[in-house]
């Protein structure tokens, strides 16, 4: 971390002392005169040529953002302007959002990157202006006449550098969109800008490598089927050791009732694996007839951060696999952007899923009418329904060693609208839950700072700054209520909040919601539990441990 991020006291000093327009210091320059500077920690490594080739993307080459010459392909200006033109035809949202902004500034201080960096171009309105200024120059006739009056500018290599910088300092979290009086969603603009950049080979390895992996092996991490199974089986062993219960997940099994898909981070990464153990315990507890696919082994979709086509391509596997296995419906694990894709895009892109049935919980009989078309249920909805119907034996005291707060992941909050279910579950599985301050939760939640494929190690500087508003909110509940556990329902959050907390709020752990469910579940035939899924001692259960010894 040290190499790519300033140490905390330096960053704090900078936030305290450096003048910025966030603090009301006027800038003496116009935004288009501000230079773009790439330095350690503020750019992601570009995709390796072999990855580009594997994906069939244009302009594979070795380059770095710090290079003077980015080796853009011949005629790149034309590629960009034609790319933009065709996308304007395809998306009303893009055209409308480029046209209707009045620059009222309501969004200005809503972006976590702006709050963390103080960089004016991180005000969502200016981020969009980066593209808008070029659009205005190339498109509507009248504005062309009024050039210089409307802030139009030419498309130059400098502009591309600026795009690369700032459209990769946007996590498509949509917080700005919430406050915009016209609902202008910078995410829509960032999505298109990143598509355009990909057209001329300006890209991000941390996004494209997982995309290539996912295409080939079925998941972002590139885990091949046998390793995938081994990983889960080692979790099964851990679970047996901790609880004395043998859970029995099945793989690629035809005829199961439910296909379970979760981000591969839950299978491979710490602390996601504990969440996975939670799922396995839960499914065992209720005796769910489910299977896990090694082919559709990824819930997340980095295609979403690449291009519309790529998103569709990666997503197509879910329905394809569900049809092949003949399941009735799909259950999805905890993930942020996975659910944005499933909720808002999947059925449109790869539906209709006529071969599936409207999901019905086999335990409670609840029909998930809200998933009648997609046929895919969110695990939090599923579990909340179980708890509400009293189908789970829970002992919230088992989470007494944790004082929790809940982080709404941006996609689940503003791209799906799920707020109550996870809170309901959390209140049922643990006894101490405190909300963070009101302007930082629910629909106003702050991004972890590393979403949308920016979770790269070399990007640590920007990530720690972008996560600052979230970390600051956690700090407040930590000081006020001694909160030490940040619960979330997003795989990227689990991966990215962990270093963020280590950086800003050491001592705060990051947990998946179903990890806490797994802790609290009282399983039939289990042995005396004294440790949570992380093998940390539970509070208040030590006596039992002594007895056993």
């Amino acid at each position: 971390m040290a190499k790519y991020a300033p140490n905390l006291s330096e960053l704090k000093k900078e936030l305290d002392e450096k003048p910025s327009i966030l603090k009301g210091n006027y800038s003496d320059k116009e935004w288009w005169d501000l230079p773009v500077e790439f330095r350690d920690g503020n750019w992601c490594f570009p995709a390796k040529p072999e990855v580009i080739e594997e994906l069939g993307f244009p302009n594979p080459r070795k380059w770095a953002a710090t290079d003077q010459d980015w080796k853009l392909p011949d005629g790149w200006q034309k590629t960009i302007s034609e790319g933009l033109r065709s996308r304007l035809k395809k998306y009303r949202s893009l055209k409308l959002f480029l046209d209707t902004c009045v620059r009222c500034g309501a969004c200005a201080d809503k972006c976590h990157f702006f709050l963390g960096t103080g960089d004016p171009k991180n005000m969502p309105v200016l981020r969009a202006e980066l593209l808008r200024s070029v659009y205005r120059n190339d498109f509507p006739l009248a504005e062309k006449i009024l050039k210089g009056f409307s802030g139009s500018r030419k498309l130059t290599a400098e502009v591309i550098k600026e795009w690369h910088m700032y459209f990769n300092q946007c996590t498509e979290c949509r917080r700005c969109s919430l406050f915009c009086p016209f609902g202008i969603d910078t995410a829509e603009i960032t999505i298109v800008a990143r598509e355009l950049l990909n057209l001329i080979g300006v890209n991000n390895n941390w996004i494209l490598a997982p995309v290539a992996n996912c295409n080939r092996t079925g998941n972002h991490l590139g885990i091949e089927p046998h390793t995938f199974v081994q990983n889960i089986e080692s979790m099964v062993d851990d679970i047996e050791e901790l609880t004395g219960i043998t859970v029995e997940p099945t793989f690629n099994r035809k005829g199961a009732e439910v296909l379970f898909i979760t981000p591969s981070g839950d299978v491979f990464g710490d602390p996601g694996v504990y969440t996975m153990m939670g799922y396995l315990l839960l499914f065992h507890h209720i005796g769910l007839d489910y299977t896990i696919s090694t082919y559709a082994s990824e819930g997340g979709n980095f295609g979403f951060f690449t291009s519309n086509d790529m998103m569709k391509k990666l997503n197509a596997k879910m329905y394809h696999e569900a049809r092949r296995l003949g399941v009735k419906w799909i259950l999805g694990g905890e993930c942020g952007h996975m659910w944005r894709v499933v909720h808002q895009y999947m059925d449109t892109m790869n539906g209709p899923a006529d071969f599936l049935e409207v999901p019905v919980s086999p335990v409670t009989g609840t029909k998930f009418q809200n998933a009648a078309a997609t046929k895919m249920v969110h695990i939090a909805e599923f579990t909340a329904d179980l708890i509400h119907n009293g189908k789970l034996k829970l002992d919230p005291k088992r989470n007494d060693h944790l004082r929790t707060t809940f982080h709404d992941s941006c996609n689940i909050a503003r791209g799906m609208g799920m707020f109550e279910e996870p809170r309901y579950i959390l209140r049922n599985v643990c006894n101490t839950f405190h909300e963070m301050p009101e302007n930082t939760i629910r629909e106003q939640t702050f991004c972890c700072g590393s979403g949308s494929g920016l979770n790269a190690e070399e990007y640590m500087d920007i990530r720690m700054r972008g996560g600052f508003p979230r970390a600051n909110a956690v700090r407040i509940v930590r000081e006020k209520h001694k909160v030490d556990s940040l619960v979330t329902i997003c795989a990227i959050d689990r991966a990215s909040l962990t270093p963020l907390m280590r950086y800003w709020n050491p001592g705060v752990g990051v947990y998946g919601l179903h990890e806490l469910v797994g802790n609290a579940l009282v399983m039939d035939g289990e042995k005396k539990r004294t440790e949570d899924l992380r093998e940390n001692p539970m509070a208040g259960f030590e006596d039992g441990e002594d007895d056993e010894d």
Partner: protein
Amino acid sequence: MIEKALKGNRNYWAWIASLLAVIAVGITAYNRQHWFGLTVTGMGRDVSWGFYIAQFTFLVGVAASAVMVVIPYYLHNRKEFSKTVIIGEFMAVAATLMCLLFILADMGRPDRVLNVLLYPSPHSMVFWDVMVLNGYFVINLVSGWTVLGAERRGVPPPSWVKPVIYLSIPWAVSIHTVTAFLYAGLPGRHLWLTAVLAPRFLASAFAAGTSLLILVTLVIKQCTGFDTGKEAREKLAVIVTYAGIVNFFMIGTEFFTAFYSHVPSHMHSLQYLFFGLEGHYTLVPFMWFSLLLGLGSLVVLLLPGRKSSPKWLAAACTGLVVSIWIDKGVGLILGGFVPSPLEEIVDYQPTLTEIGVTLGIWAIGLLVLTLLLKVAVSVKSQE
């Protein structure tokens, strides 16, 4: 922050809806008055002020009583008032707003209200009253809102608020003094022409306004579970007791001056109010009820231990509020007009329209108070 007032449970919205219904009645009634003129009220040539001005006078007192929490909290740093002080300030805001609305409702030509500012007349007490009331409204709203806003986001309030809050203390005294001067400076009205009127207003304000404040805190506790603290309430009850005693003492001195001097014109109004004059007895039962109720409430407050029982406290406070509302609102205003300068007696009775408008304005005041307190309680009880 006001968005907090837009979130509430079923009871909250039912309360808001019923207030809105009453406001609608009030608007309808006012519309009638605006169209047909003030003839639709009970006022007339001889009793030319009535219910509206009575409510106004009473509510100025309610507004002024905010200092009874501001002084101990900000001047003497008594922490037990920390939760009550915002309620006092917001009550002052709502009460001042009602005062202004009652003045407006009483005006024959509300469309010309801006004339007061366009042709400022420093020799007129009304001009000063409009100034101090608007000022008090702004001071309390701004200071209360700012302090609450700072508390909501967990930061210290900006430094400019302190002077504004200190300013509110003499300002509170001024609103009631100027209001008393409205009456006390008129040559032909013997009931009002007394130097003790301003101090009497202040005493009754600190008794009735503070009682109302105690009642509001009790209602909040009942409805939201937000408790401003027993200690604060009991301290306020002490203030109520002494202010009440001073108030009744001053009423007594008025009686002495009038009846011992035996000047007929000085006695007439008091005779009309308390004993009836020339066959007119309309207000006599009300005035005695007020007097006995007020004294009874004071006795309850003075009895040991009764203050700490919420029920007794609520009863005594309600008693004092009603007593002073009758005495200072209705009695004082009507008593000033009867007998008239020509020694004629004309009884006054509010009409339904007048009562409708009055209820409407009270409902507006309660609505504003509810919204403000909803915000305050939401902020104060946030995690």
